[in-house]
């Protein structure tokens, strides 16, 4: 099954090359690139779903990375379709390629608590909602980085003609807000579903004191503040961009570090 992953990885890598080195793959590739992205994402999603259905093991760390990569590609396909937003692929495509590749060599650990949890529809719901939320936040992260790049060029008054390939400040700012809001809604629902799962399947509310839960709640509050200052005071642009970048870094930290190093309900077992 893992070999099949080479298909989406190769496709994402090609897309990344196409974005990073203009015309390296010729015009025809650019014309079909969207279909390459759609096809690869479908294959990718298919493998993930198949694995989830067939495997006796609950999804673990490699699946989390793979799902995050898929989320980025979905954002790429949906939002990057607009010609003016093509440049989002500059970051989304390489990130997805790297993440998915990493998932193949990442230690295959699963959340140890799940081994005793048994089957519950709340678990896939919890994972799925969080996954969609993370997709939104990863988009807001990428958009935030691009916003800072474009803003810096406009402020420095240098290399302005190279901006032509990047989206406008206003467009980036709008997606920034929408993707953060989108991510926030799904993260919220995902947390709720996780809580229900813990109460129903683990039979314990002690899960709320889990380090991962706490860190996620902190991130949740962080994004809440980001949305709040935007909606109430209108602060946007650079501030929103930094909120998104820091927030997403927090999410990555929580996935890469907390799950491995800290004991708790979400800790990855051997």
């Amino acid at each position, binding site marked *: 099954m893992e070999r099949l992953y080479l298909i989406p990885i190769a496709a994402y890598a090609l897309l990344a090359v196409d974005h990073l080195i203009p015309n390296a793959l010729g*015009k025809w590739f650019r014309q079909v690139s969207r279909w390459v992205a759609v096809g690869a994402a479908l294959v990718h999603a298919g493998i993930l779903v198949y694995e989830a259905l067939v495997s006796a093991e609950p999804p673990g760390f490699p699946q989390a990375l793979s799902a995050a990569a898929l989320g980025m590609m979905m954002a790429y396909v949906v939002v990057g379709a607009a010609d*003016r937003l093509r440049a989002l692929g500059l970051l989304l495509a390489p990130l997805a390629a790297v993440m998915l590749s990493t998932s193949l060599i990442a230690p295959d650990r699963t959340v140890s608590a799940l081994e005793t949890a048994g089957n519950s529809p709340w678990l896939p719901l919890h994972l799925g909602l969080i996954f969609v939320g993370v997709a939104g936040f990863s988009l807001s992260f990428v958009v935030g980085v691009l916003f800072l790049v*474009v803003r810096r060029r*406009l*402020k420095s*008054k*240098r*290399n*302005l*003609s190279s*901006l*032509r390939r990047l*989206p*406008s*400040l*206003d*467009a980036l*700012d709008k997606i920034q807000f929408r993707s953060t809001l989108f991510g926030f809604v799904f993260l919220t629902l995902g947390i709720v579903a996780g809580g229900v799962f813990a109460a129903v399947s683990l039979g314990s509310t002690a899960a709320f004191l889990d380090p991962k839960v706490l860190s996620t709640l902190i991130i949740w509050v962080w994004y809440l503040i980001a949305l709040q200052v935007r909606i109430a*005071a*209108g*602060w*946007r*642009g*650079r*501030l929103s961009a930094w909120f998104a970048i820091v927030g997403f870094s927090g999410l990555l930290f929580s996935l890469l570090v907390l799950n491995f190093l800290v004991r708790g309900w979400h800790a990855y077992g051997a």
Partner: protein
Amino acid sequence: MPMGLDVDILAMGLNHHTAPVDVRERLALDSTGVLTQLKRLRETGLAREALIVSTCNRVELYAVPGEGGVDPLRMWFGEFRGPKGADVSSYLFEHRGMGAVQHLFRVASSLDSMVVGEPQILGQVKEAVRIAEDGKSLGRVLGAVARNTLKVAKKVRTETDIGKYTVGVGNAGVELALQIFGDLDGRRAMLVGVGDMGQQVAHALQSAGLKELLVANRTAEHAVEFANEHRATPVAWERMREYLSRVDIVVAATGAQEAIITNQDVRRALRERRYRPLFLVDLAVPRNIDPRVDDLEGAYLFNVDDLRQVIAEGVRARQAAKDRAEEVVAVEADRCFHALSRVEVGPEIGRLTQFVDGLRQAELDRSQRLVDSLDETQREQLEKLTKALVKRVLHAPLQGIHRAAEEGDAATLEALLSIWKEEE
């Protein structure tokens, strides 16, 4: 003999490179005039095919000359506008053959334009082609050239960035505005002071789709006057600062000796507009907008030097795009011109093979009795044999004809084809 190998295409005319405006305007034709002249060229036999491109920058004739050759067309250029057009010979340029094809390609691709990359010329060439089609003055040669012209111009536009790099203060302003706002749909701008450069930027913004243009001027009458002329809304000078929060773009170009838009003004405006970005262009020297404004989050201030830099970058990038476009045009002109000479021998070769096959058939008919004495299989074999023989015999001369056609070697081609002609 309709050889067409030396496809004779002529481009003749005058344009902004070769003739001053007073000469160009004397010769310029409207569409009715073009149609009349095309008819006349055809009916008098001056040209077998003709296409006239007449714009404010050029009056150019593309033609397949008639029996008389080029001289009568030169004469025609001198007199088609009557005595007013007399003596334009010193302004005329001429291209023949592939040069002519290439010239038309360059014109349509906006490589020959005064402002390289401007998009109007393609529309004008399209219109010229339409008129020539109406006047039935496009034949096999110019028809093919015209079709290719539109295709090549489109190719140049999509494959190179020739149309994307705009020069001039106005366009530089628009480009920056687009980089900030994406499009100007629903955006408002305010012109502060009705100076020349400010007007250029305001115009460019308007033609890029600005929703509303406000104008404020210290002398109110000038603002009103400008507003009436340019679909703008005048704003009282005293209230100009209030409007900073209601517009997205500010273009300042007054003769004021000190900053008329201060840091505080913009800071307040930004707060009122909830930090939606504000794009400010300061074209004045000394500057009209406090330079510290650029440090405010959400404010993007560009002065005259910044704009000049955008223009310089555009010029550089455009030169690169232009080089690339010239390559495309040269390659395509070469291909088009050679294709023209090739298609011409097609029918000749068809006729030739048909003729020889006719000979074969005739010989078989003459030996009818022999053929009749054969059974079905033998008859088929005989048929095959004679066909193979004909093919073998024709092989070398046909190759020679093709080669001569490729190389444009009219003499050889004529010699090769004439052998069979005599038989006929």
